[in-house]
């Protein structure tokens, strides 16, 4: 479904990604782990059209999307939940969700999708009139995910969704990820919570200094000594 091959990204002279290749098949959960500054967010942002790669191909459902503007990438069905819960703090929960229905494809079913999102996150339904900035961190993350779903993505990329959340809220986020997967979405998950995310993963990659250094199924990486030492402290 998503195929990335030989992706290079430079910020001026600094190389952020070097020959990154990965792929995700339909209805898979693909996890990318790596330390801070390894290039995880750069990778997601490049796939999402926010950076123009200096080399490499990104194809989604057979179409090359490398360098296309974000709104067209979203239109094709790739949604992004950016790092740090980027909700619009002064807009209401409902308005935030409506923003997510920007793709033309998603507008016709806006009402139905909204009901689905409220079904998934009853808290958001309760607080629909409230300014998003007044929600708790966990609720804001739910809102960010909900907004992404409003665009009816086929593939959803989540960048550190559990960052800064309480353990209980983190569990809730992982429950939602499993739920979305069960609903038929393909998921590309970037996480610092390596243990929990690798347990979910159909396929996983380890990113170090902008390069993929290891890949395999979730269980394979969980058994890998290097991963256990570097990321799990075992």
């Amino acid at each position: 479904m998503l195929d990335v091959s030989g992706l290079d990204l430079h910020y001026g002279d600094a190389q952020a990604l070097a020959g990154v290749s990965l792929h995700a098949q339909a209805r898979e959960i693909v996890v990318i782990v790596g330390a801070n500054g390894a290039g995880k967010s750069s990778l997601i942002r490049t796939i999402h059209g926010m950076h123009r790669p200096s080399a490499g191909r990104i194809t989604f459902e057979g179409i090359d999307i490398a360098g296309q503007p974000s709104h067209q990438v979203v239109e094709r069905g790739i949604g992004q939940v950016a790092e740090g819960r980027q909700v619009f703090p002064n807009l209401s929960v409902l308005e935030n969700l409506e923003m997510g229905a920007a793709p033309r494809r998603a507008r016709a079913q806006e009402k139905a999708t909204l009901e689905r999102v409220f079904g998934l996150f009853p808290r958001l339904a309760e607080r629909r009139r409230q300014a998003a900035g007044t929600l708790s961190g966990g609720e804001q993350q739910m809102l960010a995910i909900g907004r992404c779903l409003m665009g009816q993505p086929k593939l959803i990329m989540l960048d550190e969704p559990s960052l800064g959340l309480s353990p209980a809220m983190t569990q809730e986020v992982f429950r939602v990820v499993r739920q979305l997967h069960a609903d038929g979405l393909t998921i590309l998950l970037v996480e610092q919570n390596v243990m929990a995310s690798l347990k979910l993963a159909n396929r996983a990659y380890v990113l170090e200094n902008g390069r993929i250094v290891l890949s395999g199924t979730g269980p394979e990486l969980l058994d890998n000594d290097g991963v256990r030492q570097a990321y799990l402290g075992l």
Partner: protein
Amino acid sequence: MSESLWQRLTGDVPRRALLALGGLLLLLLAAPFLLRLAPAGDYWLSLLILVVYFSYIGQAWNIMMGFAGQLSLGHALYLGLGGYVAAALYVNLGIGPWLGVFIAVAAAMLAGGLIGFLGFRFSLAGVYFALLTIAFAEFTRILFDHFTWVGGSGGLFLKVEADGSAFNLQGSPLLFYYVILALAAGAFVLCRFLLTSRLGHYWLAVREDPEAAQAAGIAVLRTKMLAVLISAGLTAVGGVWSAFYYKSLFPEAAFAMGRSIEVTLAPIIGGLGTLFGPILGSALLVGLGDLFTTLAEILANDYGVKAAGLKQIGYGIALLLIVMFRRDGVWPWLARRLGFERRPADDAGEGRP
């Protein structure tokens, strides 16, 4: 969307606010006749004309800054360009302002589109974008200084014609008052319409967090461009009105930095991003300006005190105080006081939006 246009525009506005708005409109419609009864009525009418004019162009500027969060400090460009195009077409080619205004708007939108594209495509944001807008206004001023077809630095003048009529936008202040009032009312309704539209929502998203808007799939460049184009076009109409009202144009004044600042004051004082802010702001500004002028005159005539600069100093201090104590502008505070806020949210129990 099955709801009617009226519902959409007035949906969450409290009834008392709608009534007050209707009352204000009636009052403004009747104002010239009421002012005739007062001493120095013509003078009051000329002040009222200024209030409505500044509220109109403030509304237009507010679309860019208040709605979409893009700071323009070069709106004199659109005012000047609009005025010059319509006036030059009329003086040189005999094309009347009612037709010329469309060409003026097109010219301003072209200029706005160019500035917007350069700024947004190359990711100039905040003050850097503002500098770009200033630069364009400045070099247009210099260009027009040497543009002899429109009179160069010597200026362009519209003659007072004996057979002048509303058809060539000539006439008494009364005509200009009702024209600018119609424009201001139209801009008010248009802005309300835009704010309740999908585009309006996107503007707010871009204003709040451009990156999140991009991630959500909003075409940020297009969204910002539409704000500039609409704002520039509306401002140009104000420029045409102003050119025909004052009947003279000089590059030094038409494209002046001070004129650009003047455009921004009413919405800032009144409340950025609010519909009523520009109206309240311009009433306050024109009122304060006149107050200090009168004060200076009284001091000079009755007490022999020459207080040169009193107006500027007093005006400046008053602005400073307003900005210090009403950071979000006067209108949001006043609206709360008057109970004109959006209908209170009865959170949980509410059904479909």
